[in-house]
């Protein structure tokens, strides 16, 4: 006898509960809403927070894209896609433009998102004040009282130690001028994409049992001192050795043949698409 499975893995009650947390998160931009994180068939810390949001939102009409650090074909992205497609049968895509729902770890795609899309980011550490305050009870009070000295202090310490704010990723942001939020380990390069976003952006932390959101058109600003302005990673003068793209987030690689440093788009589907376009253009030129 075949066990009856639910559409999108969860029973409707569970989905409803997660959606309720999501609604609250949207209503209070940047505020961490606790939720009853469920056991998933993948290990906590591997995207279960994002996965639970995706499963609670997905419908039969949705078109899904899953990326892990910019790559559609990484093992984690693939296993998440398998689980979702097996339990929903939705169409899976790699092109950002084609997706209605995008689950991602550590990146916001290069192609600007639209108001018809939802981005779900996986979050390992949702609490931006954890580095200065170990107790959850205390950080809740700090947020409620808007006491954010600790977040600034962490940046100040980086300037003291490294001469600049040295957050590699997960640079804290102010949402709607009220809550300080961890944007998940996206590079600083992606922080500006959170500001006045056309798409709804949701954050899920499975292990820490938190959900939060940046609703469309919310103001998001990265923390910066008056004399140390916020700066994104700079790849000045470099471009992708495959597709030639500039002004995108590039990975630094070593050419296995020449041992030289080369750069390549971190967003693989973006790169692939540009390669295809370039090829088509070549072909058109040849036959023109």
């Amino acid at each position, binding site marked *: 006898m075949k066990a009856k499975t639910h559409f999108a893995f969860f029973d409707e009650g569970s989905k409803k509960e997660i959606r309720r947390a999501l609604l609250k998160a949207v209503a209070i931009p940047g505020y961490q809403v606790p939720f009853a994180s469920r056991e998933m068939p993948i290990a906590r810390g591997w995207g279960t927070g994002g996965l639970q949001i995706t499963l609670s939102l997905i419908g039969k009409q949705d078109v899904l894209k899953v990326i892990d650090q910019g790559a559609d074909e990484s093992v984690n992205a693939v296993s998440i896609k398998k689980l979702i497609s097996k339990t929903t049968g939705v169409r899976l895509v790699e092109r950002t433009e084609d997706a209605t729902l995008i689950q991602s770890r550590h990146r916001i795609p290069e192609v600007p998102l639209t108001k018809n899309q939802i981005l779900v980011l996986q979050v390992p550490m949702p609490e931006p004040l954890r580095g200065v305050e170990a107790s959850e009870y205390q950080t809740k009070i700090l947020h409620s*009282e808007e006491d954010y000295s600790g977040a600034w*202090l962490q940046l100040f310490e980086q300037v*003291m130690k490294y001469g600049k704010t040295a957050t590699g990723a997960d640079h804290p942001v102010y949402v709607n001028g009220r809550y300080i939020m961890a944007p998940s380990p996206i590079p600083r390069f992606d922080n500006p994409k959170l500001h006045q976003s056309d798409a709804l952006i949701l954050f899920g932390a499975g292990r820490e049992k938190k959900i939060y959101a940046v609703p469309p058109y919310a103001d998001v600003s990265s923390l910066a001192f*008056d004399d140390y302005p916020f700066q994104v990673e700079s790849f000045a003068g470099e471009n992708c050795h495959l597709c030639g793209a500039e002004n995108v987030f590039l990975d630094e690689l070593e050419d296995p043949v020449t041992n030289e440093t080369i750069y390549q788009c971190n967003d693989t589907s973006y790169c692939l698409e540009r390669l295809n376009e370039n090829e088509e253009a070549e072909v058109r030129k040849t036959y023109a």
Partner: protein
Amino acid sequence: MHEAPLLRVRDLTKQFGEACSSCDGGENLEKNYCPTCGTVYACQNISFDLYPGEILGIVGESGSGKSSMMQCLYFDSEVTSGAVYLDHIPALAGKNVFALSSQQKRAIRNQQYGMVYQNPIRGLKMDFSSVGNIAEKLIAAGNRHVGDMEAVSKSLLEHVHIPLFRMKEEPRNFSGGMQQRVQIAKALSNNPPILFLDEVTTGLDLSVQANVLDLIKGIQRDLGISMIVVSHDLAVIRMLADRTIVMLNGSIIEDGLTDQILEDPQHAYTQQLVYSLL
């Protein structure tokens, strides 16, 4: 003193526990403790004034309620009842600051108060640089300029004789005396009119003690900051305080000019304290 007080404390009461019919209101206690229900009456109806530029000493044996009182004043712990007035701030004149919202209390703490804790672990982030520890107070007071904060921190650390080449070091690497001096620098960073010092010299070597006491004396002389200095050591009080309050079992049993109390103690307990010092 004819000036208006900076800080007025009225009937500050702090109890740990729910009280019972036997002890209600502080009856039938053993010292500060109800043997029936276990409630501790750490501070009972403490009232005093702090005047501009003075150092007020609070002396009393271990457990007499000195730290409990300081923590209530600094809003680290909630009072059971009582009032504090900061009449020199026009917006707060006549208002009991204990009754304000926690945000308002934080603003008072960041702008009006500095605190040096008995235990430096409470006052400092041991894993952050010494400059960062001082900057924290400046950040809390609204500063967002790294260069400014670094300059203020440096000059304060210099003032408390922390060598500048160690200013980016974490206080965990420092000796007890240095940690207390970093705490003092931090407490001074927002130019507070009122400074609370709880047993700053306890546990320090005698020579280091003298050093820290000189520093505090100098701060009063040069900056005119009003201070409440808590100690169970009369020698410290004698050196620093203009006026002194003696506490026992959570209550004030005697107060007056420090010299007077030392020369002519009235209460039997104070007499015992003073004579044991001589």
